[in-house]
C-alpha cells in the first residue's frame, strides 16, 4: 500500500471535495474545537504570566522598606550605604501618591489613577521591565527627567486621548492641589503588567506634594549570599518596617490554578464538542458511502486498508479544520485578552503564541482522527454482499460502546497533555461524561415525554414533528445538550452580572445634590466662584485644605498623659456647613481646632502646628466633628484637623487647596463641567457622573467579558444544532423529495423542520433556566453573601428562552436552506 500513497492522498482529497456540505460541517466542527482550545490556552498563558509573575515584580523589588513618616535624606542615605557595603545590589526610592485623579484641561472625561509614583528614572525599575512606546523616547529617564513631565500607561493614554506633549492636570481630595504635567512618555509594559499608572521624577513628586520629603518608601534587591533577614532585623530596630515580596500569599497561585483549569477545561470541552460533531458527521458521511466501501472490500481491501484510506481523508479534514481553527483563535483570543484586560487595568499585550498554534493544529488533527475513527470502524463493518443485496449494517451497541470507551483513552492522553496533569485530564473527561450522562438522561426523559404526550391538536405538522423527533433522538439529544449548556452558561452569567450591577446601582449615590466640584488653590477662590456664577450656579460651598509640616502635641489632654498622632492635614471652613460639631461653638475660639471623633475626649490638648515655611502656631482642641451625610460621593471624605478658613489659609500659605462644590441640573452637568474646565485650565473639575463611571466601568467591562465567554458556550450549542440539522437534511433528502413530489412546498417542509427544532430548543432552554434557578438557590445556600443578590427574574427568563429559540430556528433554517431549494427529481435520483 505504500506504493500508492499519492494515489490515496488524491483519492482522499477528491472524496473530501465530493462530500461537499458534509465535509464543510465537519471542518467547521474541528475549527470550533481547535479555536476554543487554542484561544483559551493562549489566554490562560497571557493571564498567568501577568498574575503569577514574580512577586518581586508586583512589589517593585525583593523588599520594600518604609517608616512611620516620609523618608528624610538621612533615611535614604542609610539605605544607600547598604549598596556601598555590597549588601544590596540596587535600591529605588519612591514617592507614591494615592487617590489621584487625572484630567485633560477642558475635557469632560476624568480618570481615577491606581498609582502615581515618583521615581529616580535613571534607576527605576530595579526588577522587571518598563517599556515605552507610541512615539515615546527610548528610556524613562529621557521621558520624565524634566520636572513637570510624566509618563502615563497606555490604557490612560487611550482612555484620555493623550499623546506625547499633551498637558494633563492631577489632584486628589486631600493634599495635592491641581498640578499640571506634560506627557513625556507612554508606557506600554510595566514590570507587574498593571496599568492605570503614571510615573514622574522625584523632583516632580516634591513639587506635586509641595514638600521636600516626598519619598515614602524604598525598594531594594538583596545581594546574593547576603543574610537579608538579619539586615532587615537591624533595620527594624532602627525604626524601619520591611515587607518582602516572598510574603505574598500562595492564595494568588491557587486562584490562578483554578482559573487556568477553568479556561483550559473550557477549551477541552470545546474540543470535545467539535469532536462529537466530527464523529456525528463522519458516521453519516460514511453511511452514505456504504457501497463504495463494499466495492473496495470486494476488490480485496481489508479493514486496515480502509482505516488508512479513510483515516487519510479524516486527517485531511482535521488539517483544514485545525488551520481554520487556529486562525480564528488568533482573533478570538486577542479579543478575549483585550476584554479581560479592561476588567482590571491590566496591561496585557494581545500576543499570540505561534508555537501554541502549531500544537493546536497537531491536537486538532489527532482529535479528528480519534473521533473520526469511531465512524471509520463502524463503516468498515459494511459487508461486500451489500453490493448484491441491500443489507442493514448491524449496529452492535455493545461494540459501539466499547469502541467509544477505547477511543476515550487516546482522547484522555490529549486532555492530559493540554492540562499538564493526568488527574485533571481524566477529571475533565469524567466531568464531561458525567454531565453528558446526567443531562442526556434528563433531557432524554423530557424528550420522551414530549414524544409520547405532546398534544398535536390535530395539527398535522406537529404530529410529523413529534414522529421525526423520535426517529433520530440520539443525534438530536447531543444538539439539545449543547444548547442547554450554552443557555445555562449565558443565563447564569447574566444573573451574576445583573446581581452585581444591582449592587453597584444600589450603592451608587444620587447624581443630584452637590454633583459638581472644582479643585483649585485658595487664591483662585474669587475666580472659581465667578466661574460657577457664570454658569448660573449661585449656591456653592467651599472646603479649604492645607498640608503642614507637622502637628505636635504640646500639652496632653486633661486626665490623659498619652501622646497622640494628629497627622499633618488641616481642613478649613467659613461655616460648618457639612459637619456636625461636638464641643465649643464654631468660631468661639479663633485658635480652636476640632478633631475627628476617635471616641476620646481630647479637649484642652494644645498642639503646635508648623507650616511648610516654618511658621508655627499653637492651637487648642475644642471639640470633635463628624461629616454629615450630604449624599454626594464627591464630598464623602474629609480627614485631619478642622478649623477656620483663616487659620488654614494662614498656615497653608499659597498652596492652600480649595474645593468648591455646587449643584447643577443633570441635563447640564457635563456641559457645565466642560465649560468651567475650559475657562480655568489649571483646576480639576469632577462630577458625580465621573465618579459613577469609574465605579461602574469595571463592572461593565467584566459584564462584556463574561458575556463573550458565555457566547462561546452558546456558539458550541449552535455548532451542534447546525451539524444536526445539516446531517438530518442529508438523511432526509429522499423523504423531502417524496414530499415535494406529492405537492409540499419548501415552506411546508421548512415548517415541519422548524417545529421540530423549535420543540428541541424550548425543551433545552427551559431546562437550562431551571438549571440556572437551581444554581442560584445552591449559591445562595453555599455563599450567604449572595443571598438576595442573585435572582432570575421572569422577564430575563422569558427573554432567554425567546432568544435561544430564535437563534436555533435561524441556524436550522440556514443549515436546511440549500437542501430545500433542490428539485424533487434530483433528490429522488440521489443515492441515499
Amino acid at each position, binding site marked *: 500500500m505504500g*506504493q500508492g500513497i499519492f494515489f490515496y492522498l*488524491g483519492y482522499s482529497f477528491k472524496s473530501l471535495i465530493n462530500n461537499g456540505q458534509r465535509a464543510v460541517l465537519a471542518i467547521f466542527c474541528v475549527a470550533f474545537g481547535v479555536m476554543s482550545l487554542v484561544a483559551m490556552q493562549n489566554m490562560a498563558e497571557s493571564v498567568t504570566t501577568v498574575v503569577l509573575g514574580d512577586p518581586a515584580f508586583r512589589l517593585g523589588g525583593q523588599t520594600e522598606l518604609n517608616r512611620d513618616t516620609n523618608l528624610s535624606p538621612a533615611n535614604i542615605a542609610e539605605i544607600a550605604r547598604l549598596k556601598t557595603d555590597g549588601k544590596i545590589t540596587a535600591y529605588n526610592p519612591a514617592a507614591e501618591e494615592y487617590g489621584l485623579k487625572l484630567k485633560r484641561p477642558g475635557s469632560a472625561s476624568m480618570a481615577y489613577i491606581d498609582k502615581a509614583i515618583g521615581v529616580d528614572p535613571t534607576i527605576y525599575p530595579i526588577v522587571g521591565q518598563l517599556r515605552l512606546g507610541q512615539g515615546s523616547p527610548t528610556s524613562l529617564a529621557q521621558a520624565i527627567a524634566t520636572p513637570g513631565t510624566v509618563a502615563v500607561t497606555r490604557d490612560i493614554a487611550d482612555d484620555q486621548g493623550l499623546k506625547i506633549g499633551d498637558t494633563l492636570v492631577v489632584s486628589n481630595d486631600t493634599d495635592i492641589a491641581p498640578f499640571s504635567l506634560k506627557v513625556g512618555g507612554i508606557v506600554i509594559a510595566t514590570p507587574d503588567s498593571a496599568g492605570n499608572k503614571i510615573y514622574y521624577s522625584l523632583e516632580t513628586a516634591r513639587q506635586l506634594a509641595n514638600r521636600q520629603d516626598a519619598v515614602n518608601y524604598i525598594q531594594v534587591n538583596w545581594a546574593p549570599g547576603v543574610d537579608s533577614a538579619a539586615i532587615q532585623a537591624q533595620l527594624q530596630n532602627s525604626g524601619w518596617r520591611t515587607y518582602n515580596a516572598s510574603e505574598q500569599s500562595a492564595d494568588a497561585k491557587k486562584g490562578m490554578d483554578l482559573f487556568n483549569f477553568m479556561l483550559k477545561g473550557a477549551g477541552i470541552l470545546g474540543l470535545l464538542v467539535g469532536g462529537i460533531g466530527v464523529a456525528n458527521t463522519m458516521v453519516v458521511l460514511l453511511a452514505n458511502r456504504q457501497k463504495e466501501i463494499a466495492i*473496495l*472490500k*470486494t*476488490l*480485496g481491501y481489508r479493514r486496515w486498508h480502509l482505516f488508512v484510506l479513510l483515516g487519510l481523508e479524516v486527517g485531511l479534514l482535521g488539517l483544514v479544520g485545525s488551520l481554520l481553527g487556529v486562525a480564528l483563535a488568533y482573533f478570538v483570543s486577542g479579543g478575549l485578552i483585550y476584554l479581560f484586560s479592561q476588567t482590571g487595568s491590566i496591561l496585557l499585550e494581545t500576543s499570540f503564541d505561534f508555537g501554541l498554534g502549531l500544537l493546536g493544529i497537531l491536537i486538532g488533527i489527532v482529535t479528528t482522527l480519534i473521533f473520526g475513527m469511531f465512524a471509520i470502524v463502524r463503516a468498515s463493518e459494511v459487508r*461486500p454482499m451489500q453490493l448484491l*443485496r441491500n443489507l442493514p449494517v448491524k449496529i452492535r451497541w455493545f461494540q459501539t460502546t466499547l469502541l467509544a470507551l477505547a477511543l476515550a483513552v487516546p482522547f484522555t492522553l490529549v486532555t492530559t497533555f493540554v492540562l499538564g496533569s493526568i488527574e485533571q485530564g481524566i477529571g475533565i473527561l469524567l466531568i464531561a461524561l458525567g454531565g453528558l450522562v446526567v443531562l442526556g438522561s434528563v433531557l432524554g426523559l423530557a424528550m420522551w415525554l414530549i414524544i409520547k404526550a405532546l398534544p398535536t391538536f390535530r395539527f398535522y405538522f406537529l404530529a410529523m414533528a413529534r414522529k421525526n423527533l423520535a426517529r433520530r433522538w440520539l443525534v438530536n439529544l447531543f444538539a439539545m445538550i449543547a444548547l442547554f449548556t450554552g443557555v445555562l452558561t449565558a443565563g447564569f452569567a447574566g444573573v451574576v452580572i445583573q446581581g452585581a450591577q444591582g449592587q453597584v446601582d444600589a450603592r451608587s449615590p444620587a447624581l443630584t445634590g452637590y454633583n459638581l466640584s472644582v479643585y483649585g488653590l485658595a487664591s483662585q477662590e474669587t475666580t472659581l466662584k465667578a466661574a460657577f456664577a457664570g454658569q448660573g450656579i449661585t449656591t456653592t460651598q467651599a472646603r479649604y485644605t492645607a498640608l503642614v509640616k507637622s502637628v505636635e502635641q504640646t500639652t496632653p489632654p486633661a486626665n490623659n498623659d498619652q501622646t497622640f498622632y494628629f497627622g499633618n492635614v488641616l481642613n478649613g471652613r467659613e461655616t460648618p456647613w457639612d459637619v456636625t460639631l461636638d464641643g465649643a461653638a464654631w468660631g468661639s475660639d479663633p485658635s480652636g481646632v476640632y478633631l475627628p471623633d476617635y471616641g476620646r475626649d481630647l479637649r484642652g490638648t494644645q498642639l503646635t502646628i508648623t507650616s511648610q515655611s516654618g511658621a508655627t502656631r499653637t492651637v487648642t482642641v475644642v471639640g470633635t466633628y463628624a461629616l454629615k451625610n450630604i449624599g454626594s460621593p464627591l464630598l464623602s471624605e474629609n480627614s485631619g484637623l478642622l478649623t477656620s478658613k483663616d487659620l488654614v489659609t494662614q498656615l497653608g500659605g499659597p498652596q492652600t487647596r480649595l474645593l468648591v462644590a455646587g449643584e447643577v441640573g443633570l441635563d447640564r452637568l457635563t456641559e457645565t463641567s466642560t465649560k468651567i474646565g475650559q475657562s480655568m485650565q489649571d483646576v480639576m473639575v469632577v462630577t458625580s457622573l465621573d465618579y459613577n463611571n469609574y465605579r461602574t466601568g469595571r463592572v461593565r467591562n467584566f459584564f462584556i467579558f463574561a458575556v463573550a465567554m458565555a457566547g462561546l458556550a452558546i456558539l458550541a450549542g449552535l455548532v451542534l444544532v447546525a451539524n444536526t440539522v445539516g446531517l438530518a437534511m442529508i438523511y432526509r433528502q429522499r423523504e423531502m423529495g417524496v414530499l415535494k413530489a406529492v405537492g409540499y412546498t419548501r415552506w411546508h417542509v421548512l415548517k415541519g423542520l422548524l417545529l421540530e427544532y423549535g420543540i428541541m430548543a424550548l425543551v433545552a432552554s427551559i431546562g437550562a433556566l431551571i438549571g440556572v434557578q437551581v444554581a442560584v438557590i445552591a449559591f445562595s445556600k453555599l455563599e450567604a453573601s449572595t443571598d438576595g443578590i442573585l435572582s432570575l427574574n421572569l422577564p430575563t427568563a422569558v427573554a432567554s428562552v425567546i432568544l435561544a429559540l430564535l437563534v436555533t430556528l435561524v441556524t436550522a433554517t440556514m443549515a436546511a436552506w440549500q437542501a430545500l431549494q433542490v428539485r424533487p427529481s434530483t433528490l429522488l435520483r440521489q443515492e441515499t
Partner: protein
Amino acid sequence: MLKTGSEAPAQGILAGPLVQAINISRSLPLAGQPIHILRDISFDIEAGEMVALVGASGSGKSTLLGILAGIDAPSSGRLVIDGEDVTGLNETKLALLRNRKLGIVFQSFNLIPTLTAQENVEIPLYVSPYAREARQRAARMLDLVGLSDRRQHRPHQLSGGQQQRVAIARALVTEPKILLADEPTGNLDSHTGEQVLDLFESLRQQLGLTLVIATHDNAIAGRANRILRITDGRLLHTSSNVER
C-alpha cells in the same frame, strides 16, 4: 461430460476443475425461521469455460455468485477454488482471494464516482503485488477494453456501456483466473449488452479466462459453454452448448 462435482479432489491438490461447489446450501434467518436460498448445490467448472447461471429473479443465482465470489459464505457445503478450500476462510484471506484470483462485475457497474476511469481500474492494484506498475497496467487494460481515450473521464461522464467496460477492466487488471459477472447487461440496452458480451468472449479467449455469468436472459445463456439452471435455490439441471 459435465462433472457435477461429487468426486472432490483432496484439499490443496489441483487435479481437476477450477471451481468445485460441493453441496452448497445457504439460508438466512427471518423472524426466527430459516429461509433457504440455496439447497445442496454441487457443480464443477473447468478452466477456460464460460458458464451461465440462469434462473428467474429470486432463484438464488446472485447468492450463488456471491458465494463463488467470496463475498458471501455458505451455510453448509464446501467450495474449492483453484485447488484451495475457501469455505470458512477469514475475511482477510477472502479479501486476498478476491484480489488475486477473482474478478467481479456487477449489474450496476459499482464504480467509485469520485475517481476517473483510470483511477477506478488502478484501485485493486495497490493492494496487490502489482502496485508499482499500477498506472501502466491500468492503462493497458483500458486499451484492451477500448477506452484508452476515456481514461480521465469520471463515471458520470461515461455511457452505461463504457462504465461497464471500465468495471470489466477493473475486474481483470489483477489477472484473476475467474471472472464472475452478475447480470452484467441488466442495465444496458440490447445493442450495448451485445457489445459487452462480445467483449467478454474476446477477453476470455485472449486471457484464457474462466467466466461465470449470472443472468435471467436465455439469450445470454445461449452464448455460454454450459448453463446451470437454478430454480428456487436448487440446481435443476445443467446443459451444455456447442463448443464455442
